[in-house]
């Protein structure tokens, strides 16, 4: 099913003192699609996600939902949720409680694994497990958009494969913006890919070739 609504990030400018981090950004994230952002370390991907989410204040931004300017997208009812790079949840909270408070519903296919993990505190889980369940917490949220900042980090290959499948299954209901350094996995699930370089976004038409040309991956 194709949607016509979209979240747009336009004319974003971020600077720390004299140093410009982002400028002339344009991103279009249609509902029902996976949009990817790739870029080198420190190029501003996480900052861009936080600006779109509404928790980082840039010099200038225009984030629009369905054509309407939204200053603080995270405060809009059921619009967007964000998975940061670092742990998201309070360690004392039980997995089940976190899902309850976020209104996130775990898929039936997790049956036994969910039973094992649901009463554990998030701080008791291993780094990879915690990352996996926090990603699901965001991914299964009843919102229009999820922003995933390096969801594959700390995950074993089997979890990465499962997560890719889950992201694809969730895109029928929402728009997904993802950034990660596992570019092959990202490209596999992305409907459109942007490359962030010198503070500006470039929409890739032939992703692998373009990434080579731009020096992100070796020839």
């Amino acid at each position: 099913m194709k949607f016509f609504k979209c979240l747009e990030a336009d004319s974003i400018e971020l600077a720390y003192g004299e140093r410009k981090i982002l400028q002339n950004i344009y991103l279009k994230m249609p509902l029902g699609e996976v949009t990817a952002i790739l870029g080198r370390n420190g190029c501003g991907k996480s900052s861009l996600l936080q600006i779109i989410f509404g928790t980082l204040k840039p010099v200038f931004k225009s984030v629009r939902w369905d054509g309407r300017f939204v200053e603080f997208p995270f405060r809009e009812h059921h619009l967007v949720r964000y998975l940061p790079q670092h742990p998201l949840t309070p360690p004392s909270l039980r997995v089940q409680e976190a899902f309850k408070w976020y209104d996130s519903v775990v898929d039936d296919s997790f049956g036994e694994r969910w039973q094992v993990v649901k009463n554990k505190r998030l701080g008791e889980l291993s780094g990879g497990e915690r990352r996996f369940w926090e990603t699901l917490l965001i991914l299964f949220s009843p919102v229009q958009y999820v922003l995933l900042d390096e969801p594959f980090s700390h995950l074993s290959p089997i979890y990465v494969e499962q997560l890719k499948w889950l992201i694809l299954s969730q895109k029928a209901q929402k728009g997904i913006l993802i950034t990660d350094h596992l570019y092959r996995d990202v490209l596999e699930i992305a409907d459109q890919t942007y490359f962030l370089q010198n503070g500006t976004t470039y929409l890739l038409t032939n992703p692998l070739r373009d990434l080579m040309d731009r020096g992100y991956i070796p020839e």
Partner: protein
Amino acid sequence: MLFAVWLFYRQFWFFTNAVSWGGWLVAQVPLGDDLWLLLGPLFWLKFASFGVIWYFMHTFSRQKYLFYQNMGHSIPRLFLGAFCLDMLFFFGVLALINWLIHV
């Protein structure tokens, strides 16, 4: 909202209470009419301790806010809610102690 405030407050309730009860102890545990005189200073002590918490959280652990922001809550609202909860708890317990001793 209340759950979020409670969860947020749990991160630093020990510190604010330690400061407030410490202030009461330093003032030689006043009760009755003497307690009324101390209410103002205790309020400002609480206010200052929240200022310290706000500064440290804002400087060193801003990322902790994201859990609450994902639920649509703004940080000023969370701090305001936590402050009200803290006041209610501290002055409520203080009033109870005062009442029990004077009954």
